[in-house]
Structures are given as C-alpha cells and as structure tokens.
C-alpha cells in the first residue's frame, strides 16, 4: 500500500474507530486519537515525494514547505490531543471531527492540484464548524454561523480564483499552473492572486476578514481553541504563501509599479498586515474576557506574518515563516494554559480571577514562558522572528509600517501583563481557595511546547536552515548569513546564545544582591499598604477595566469598526430587498395578473426569437 493511501486510511479509520469506541470508555477516545496521530506522524515522516491517484485524478506530494507546516500540525495536534486526556467530558463527535480535521489539514498541505486542495480545504473548514458548534447553544450557534458564513465567502473567493487559474492555464496541477501563469493576461493574473489572498485571509484572520475570530475562539471547546489559533490559522498563512510567492514569483512582480523598492502588491499586503497588527492589538487591550484577549492577540500576530510576506525580501520571508512557527508554538501554549485555568475555575472573565499563582504555580511559570515569547523577549523563539521582520522592514524602507508594527508589539506588553496579572497575580478570590493545579496531561503538554520555544530561541539557526531550503525550493531570495546561534542581516546581527548566557550571568548577579540583604518574612496577601484607604482587609483585585485611562484616550480609534460597515451593508441589502419584495408582492390580484401576462408575452417572444 502506498504511504499516502496508508496515511489516508489511518486518519479515516482512526476517526471512525474513535467515534465508535469512544462511546464505551471516557478515556479510550483520547488514547485512540493519540495512537492515530502517532501513526500518522510516523507515516508522514516517511512519505515519498509524489503520489497520483488515477480516478478521480488527484495529485499529492511533499516538499519542504508542506513538511514544515505538516510537522507543526501533527506535532501541536498531538500535544493538544495529549492535553485532551484531561477533558473526558468532550463528546466522541468532537474527537471524530478533530481527527478528520487534522487529516484534512495534512492532505491539504500535501495536495498538488486544485481539486484535491479545494476538497481538503472545505473538509478542514467544515470540521472546524462542527467543533465550534459542538453541542449547540445560542452563543455557540451564533459564533459557528458567523464562522460558516465567513468560511463560505473565503471558499467562494478561492473557488473563483481556482476557476480563473484552471481556465487560463488549462491545468489543474500546481506545477502546470506555475508554468502557465506567465502566459496569462496580467489583469486575470492579478485578479486570481488577489482573490486567493482574500480567500486565505479569512482563515488567517487578516483584517477586514477577521470578525468571526473573537466569537469563534471564545465559543469553541477550550483545548481546541489552542489548535484553532495555533495551527489552523497557519493554513491560511500557507495558502497566502502559495498564492503570493509560488504563483506570483514566476510572473515577475518586478514589472509592477514600485514603492520603496517593493512592488505595489507587496506594499499593499504590508500595509494590511501592519494595520491588522496595530488595530487588533489595541482592541486586545480592552477585552474583559481572557479568551477574547488572546483571540485579538492572534489576529494581531498573524498581521505580523502578512507584513513579513508583504516586505518580500529574503529577511522578510524568513521572518514571516519564523513568526508563523513561533506564533503556532506560543499561542498554543497560552490557549492551553487558559484552558487549564477555565477547567479549574470555570470562568475566563479576568475580573473574577486573580491570585492563582498561589494555587497553580506551574501554570503561572508557563504563562510567563508563553508571554515572553509573545512579547518577543530574547532567549525565546518570539524574538528572532520579530527581529527579522523589523530588520527587513527598516532595511526595505517601510518606515510608517515599521512604526505601526513597533506600536503593536509595545501593546503586546499591555495586554499580556493584563492577562497574566488578572489571572495569576493580584489577590486570590475567596471561592478559589480550593483550586488545584491543572492535571498532569495539561501541564505536561506545557512542558512539551516550551522545549522548542527555548530551543529555537537560543539556536535560531536551526529554523533558519529550513527557511533557507524553502526559499531555495521556490526560487525566492534566501537568508544565508547565519550560524546555529547568530543571524546577521545588512543592518546588524544578533547572537541568541550569548544573550541567553549573559542573561543568566546577570541573573546570578541579581541573586547575589538578593542574598547580600537580610532575611525576609512571609506575609498574608491582605497585609498590604493601602495608605489608610481601608482599615480592614478588603478584596481589592485590580482586574476590571485595567487600562481605562488608555481606552478613554483611544476612543476615536475604537470607534472605527469594520463590523459597523458590514452591518450597514447587511441593513442596506435587507432594505433594498424589502422594497423590491413589497413592490412585487403587493397583495393585489390585478398586479399578479399583469406579471403573468408580461411573463407569457416574454416567453412567447423568446420562443418566437429562438424559432427564428
């Protein structure tokens, strides 16, 4: 049996078996999922280069790019599945959809023709819908419907673009399209690529296609949100990469008008990316629910990736791919931590949480690890990826967008601190006195994700090697000036390992100062200095409207809402349709008689014309 068929069989059988046997035992379904994913990972790592199916004629293959995204999908999928061991209450339906979803994602990455790609894209999208919907409920139903509408719009864009590509190049295979695209009329070419990017941008949560994201993330099952944000949004990024670099690198975008040395297409993408990063991070600051905060943060970070693609230089592409990897890792970690917190406390409203560091120290430590990577502190994977994007932007002269991107990454500190403070620091609630640390499967999954976060943070060269190979494969400019620990760009250089080692030396210096000083005495959390504002210990957790003074100043910016525009379009369409309906279905029998007469006259006229 061909390994590709075997892989498909593993996913299919795994999904069905998990569904059927999942009804008998609470834990069996998760173990079956893990076995399926382990088998799939093994087969995935041993796939031959090409595989074609005769009827229906579909083409599959693997290259460095699909390998990278496939490893992310399977690796993080397995880790999330491991964390699912702590959620036996999820229904077998969910596991069925989860396995199918990962299978569809993998075959999406492996597909080498338009039909297979689109089928897998749709399967992936529909299984997400089923998982968001879950057991139903008004809120989840609304979020799932919103997701479905957006997903359908995205799919329609993609289908339309595929139709244009297939029609103009007479080929359904990627290779044929890449070869034939230079003969296409330039108008159709640009239209197809713009449509593809718009379609993939829905899944990649790029503004203005992002409105489904906060709702869908907030309502989907908590451990699955980690996978949805960490991995599935990257499939949109994968699609944008295909559309923008694989398809358009061949047709020499250099011929297009240029701004600061970048063709106008890339320039527009960079602006959209930067505005997404900036706007979403400002909105993340004012969220009251932690899941929504992380959802907006995801949108913001995905904007960085698009920004890197838009710059389009060797450093920009490497930075964008690097950020895709690092966002996948740290956002999965942060969402899993939040899932653990919600499991133990039952809420993600930040004002109702607080002080959990005393009860869940492990979760706190990994929340800091995830936050360091999110904020882009050196030593974690978040820094080299952001650093490459900045260097690329400044080097290419993207001055205004660089400022926006920097503002966005400063805003990260604001919402990240709010996240970690409101949940883990501050005062512990009276009704959280008996909260326990998250169970073993969850905290062990934290550790598994943290290893690559630090490993690639200290040795970014390992990842850079893969990005260089990807760039080479698609004839793109590649960053070659790097070693295992150092990356050098035309602007400057960065040695990750030295930074890490020196930080530990500095930390030792800090500890030395700590031990020079006298002994300390542990005090109760209410034993604080309140400047005489309260004479008895009272609960004063600063969790609600954390940045109120900032929100007040940013009000003019917050008023800009793309959702209002959509609302307006919807209202307008409804109004027009209503008027048309009222005009035609007026309830007057005479009018209906007129319609019938006119219709018959047209019919007779048409038949008469055709006969002639």
């Amino acid at each position, binding site marked *: 049996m061909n390994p590709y068929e075997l892989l498909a069989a593993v996913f299919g059988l795994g999904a069905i078996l998990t569904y059927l046997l999942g009804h008998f035992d609470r834990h069996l379904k998760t173990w079956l999922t893990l076995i399926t994913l382990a088998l799939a990972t093994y087969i995935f790592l041993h796939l031959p280069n090409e595989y074609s199916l005769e009827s229906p004629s579909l083409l599959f293959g693997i290259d460095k790019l699909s390998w990278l995204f496939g490893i992310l999908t399977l690796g993080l999928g397995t880790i999330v599945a491991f964390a699912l061991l702590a959620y036996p209450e999820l229904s077998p339906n969910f596991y069925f959809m989860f396995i199918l979803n990962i299978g569809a994602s993998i075959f999406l990455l492996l597909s080498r023709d338009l039909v297979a790609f689109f089928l897998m894209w749709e399967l992936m999208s529909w299984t997400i819908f089923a998982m968001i919907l879950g057991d139903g409920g008004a809120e989840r139903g609304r979020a799932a419907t919103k997701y479905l509408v957006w997903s359908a719009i995205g799919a329609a864009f993609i289908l339309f673009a595929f139709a244009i590509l297939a029609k103009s190049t007479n080929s359904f295979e990627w290779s044929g399209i890449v070869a034939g695209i230079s003969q296409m009329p330039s108008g159709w070419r640009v239209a197809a690529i713009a449509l593809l990017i718009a379609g993939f941008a829905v899944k990649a949560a790029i503004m203005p296609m992002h409105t489904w994201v906060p709702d869908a993330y907030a309502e989907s099952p908590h451990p699955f949100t980690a996978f949805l944000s960490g991995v599935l949004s990257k499939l949109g990024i994968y699609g944008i990469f295909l559309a923008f670099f694989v398809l358009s690198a061949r047709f020499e975008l250099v011929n297009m008008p240029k701004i600061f040395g970048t063709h106008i297409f890339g320039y527009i993408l960079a602006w959209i990316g930067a505005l997404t990063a900036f706007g979403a991070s400002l909105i993340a600051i004012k969220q009251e629910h932690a899941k929504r905060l992380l959802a907006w943060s995801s949108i913001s970070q995905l904007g960085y990736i698009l920004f890197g693609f838009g710059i389009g230089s060797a450093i920009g592409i490497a930075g964008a791919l690097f950020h895709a990897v690092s966002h996948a890792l740290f956002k999965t970690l942060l969402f899993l931590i939040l899932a653990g917190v919600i499991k133990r406390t039952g809420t993600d409203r930040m004002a109702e949480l607080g002080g959990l*560091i*005393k009860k869940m120290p492990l979760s706190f430590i990994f929340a*800091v690890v995830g936050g360091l990577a999110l904020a*882009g*502190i*050196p030593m974690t994977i978040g*820094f080299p990826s952001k*650093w490459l994007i*900045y*260097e690329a932007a*400044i080097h290419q*002269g993207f*001055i205004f967008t*660089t*400022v926006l991107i*920097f*503002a966005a990454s*400063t*805003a990260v500190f*604001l919402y990240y*601190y*709010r996240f970690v*403070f409101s949940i*883990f*620091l501050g005062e512990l609630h009276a009704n959280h006195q008996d909260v326990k640390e998250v169970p073993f499967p969850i905290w062990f999954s934290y550790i598994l994700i943290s290893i690559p976060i630090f490993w690639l943070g200290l040795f970014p060269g390992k990842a850079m090697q893969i990005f260089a190979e990807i760039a080479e494969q698609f004839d793109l400019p590649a960053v070659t000036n790097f070693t295992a620990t*150092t990356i050098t760009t035309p*602007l*400057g*250089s*960065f040695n990750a390992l*030295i*930074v890490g080692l020196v*930080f530990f030396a*500095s*930390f030792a*210096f*800090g*500890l030395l*100062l*700590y031990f*020079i*000083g*006298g*002994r*300390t*005495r*542990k*005090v109760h*959390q209410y034993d*604080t*200095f*309140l*400047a005489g504002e309260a004479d008895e210990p009272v609960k*004063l*957790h*600063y969790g609600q409207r954390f*940045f109120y*003074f*900032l929100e*007040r100043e940013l009000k003019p910016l917050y008023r800009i809402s793309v959702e209002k525009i959509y609302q307006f379009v919807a209202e307008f369409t409804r109004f027009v349709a209503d008027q048309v309906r009222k005009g035609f279905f007026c309830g007057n029998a005479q009018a209906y008689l007129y319609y019938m007469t006119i219709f018959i006259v047209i019919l007779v006229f048409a038949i008469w014309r055709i006969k002639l």
Partner: protein
Amino acid sequence: MTGQILWAIFMPILVIIIGLIYMGLARKITARIHNRYGPPFYQNIIDVIKLFSKKDVANHGVMFSLGPVIAVAGMVISLLFIPIGNRPLLSFNGDIIVLLYLLVIAPLGMALGVGEGANPNGAIGIARALTLMLGYEVVLVIAAVAVMIHAGSASFMEIIRQQQGGVAHWFIWPLFLSALATDIALQAILGEKPFDQPIAPHEIASGPMVEYGGKFLGMLQIYHAIAIIVETGIFVNLFLGGGSLVWWFVKSFAVFFVALLINAVMPRFRIGQAFKFYWTYPAAIGLVGLIIVAIT
C-alpha cells in the same frame, strides 16, 4: 579577553555607584532650584547600604522576591549591550532593536513581582507605566528608525564610528528633530516629571514600589541607578557620538541634567494626557524628522 571579562564584572559596579551619585546630585540640584539646601550628593549610596541592612522585610512570595532580581539582571544585561566610552563589550552580538527588547526584561520582571504583591496601588502603577510606555515607545522607535536609516546600520558600533571626528559629526545636527523627539521620550523613560505618573507618590503611594521594602527597595534603587545610565547612554551613543570613558559620562550627565531641570519646575500630567501628548506632538516631530531622513 581577560581584560574584557574583568571590565564586564567591574563596569556594572562602577555604573551602579555613578548612577547612585547621579540620583544624589539630582536631589541636590532639584533642592537648589527649589531654594532648599538638599542632602549630600552621596546620600543615595548611604540609603542603599541602609536598605540592604534592614531586618524583617515583608515578602509576598517567590515571584515577588524575583521581581527586583530580574529587574537588576535585565538592566545589567542591557548595560553590557551598549558601548560605554568606546568600550564595546557585547555590542557586536546585538543591535539597537536587540537592546530595545533587552531593556524591557527589567520592567517586565518587576511588573510580575509587583503583581504578586497584590496591592492595587502597585497594579495601577504598572498599568500607568505600560500606558506611558505605549506612548513614548512609538516616539523612540520613530527616532531610532531615522537614525538607523541615516546610518544605514542598526549596530551601535557602526553608528558611533560614523560620528567620530568632532562635534560637527554628531548625529544631533543632521537628525535634530529625531534627537528632540528622543529627548522628550527620555523624560518619560527616566520617569521624571511631568511623566512620573507610574510612581506618583501623592496619588498611588509610589505605585510599583509600594509593597517593596528593605533590600528589595535597595535593589530597585540599584535598578534605577543603572537605568539612568543606560537610558541617557542610548541618547549619547545615538546622537552625541559616544566618546572616551570620562567624556561619555559627562555627556550622559548633561542629558540627565536637562531632564532634571524640566523635572524640577513641572507638575504632573494626568496619565491619559501624557499618553495623548506622546502620540501627538513628539510623534509628529519625530515623523517629520523621519520623512526628511527618508527623502534625503
């Protein structure tokens, strides 16, 4: 190599002492402006020694204790990454952007520590500090991008090298607007009035420092001492051409002195006003400077 390692160990201690003297001089100068007598210039060194010898220090937990430790560690590592007086230690291993991110380690560690202190005053102080940071960081980045484009490099060593050969070569002349914007941002980075909202002793009881006492407060003083040198040092390296060791500290004190003079006569902005201020006037000045650099 041995000399470099010895210097790397010796320099933080030197910088701590000089930074504490800066703080003492600041008290003296402010006092003279207010027509008071003021404490001796070495008062802050005495204060730190006193704080470290305090017994019975209140402690809210492990993260609370680690906060000041990370604050000092983060500042020391930033210090090693900026060239002080033509003596580059690790400046070849990172550039301005690396430094901007290393600079955040210290406040972030401290913020986490303050959080475990569970005092709402501390949390409000941090929230204000972060808001202020969102304000001035944009200005600082606009100016830094202008410098990087002007020099064609993000490396401190390259930027200092291009400014060698006398006062006329300093970047403050071709990049005057960027330097002005940076200096305005520096006022908030240093935490001097009118941008001392995060501390605001009369409103939120010293904000982040409210729960810290004894050796913790001593460590935060040391953190502040290093921070003054690092933050003024960035200005010296970017716009005033670095210089030999003595000259470097003279220039750094001159930058600090300007901030002090403003501090001594200004009241405090409301935090919202401060944020809005940074996103309007200094940002506009910086952007004009940036556009001029980008065009020429």
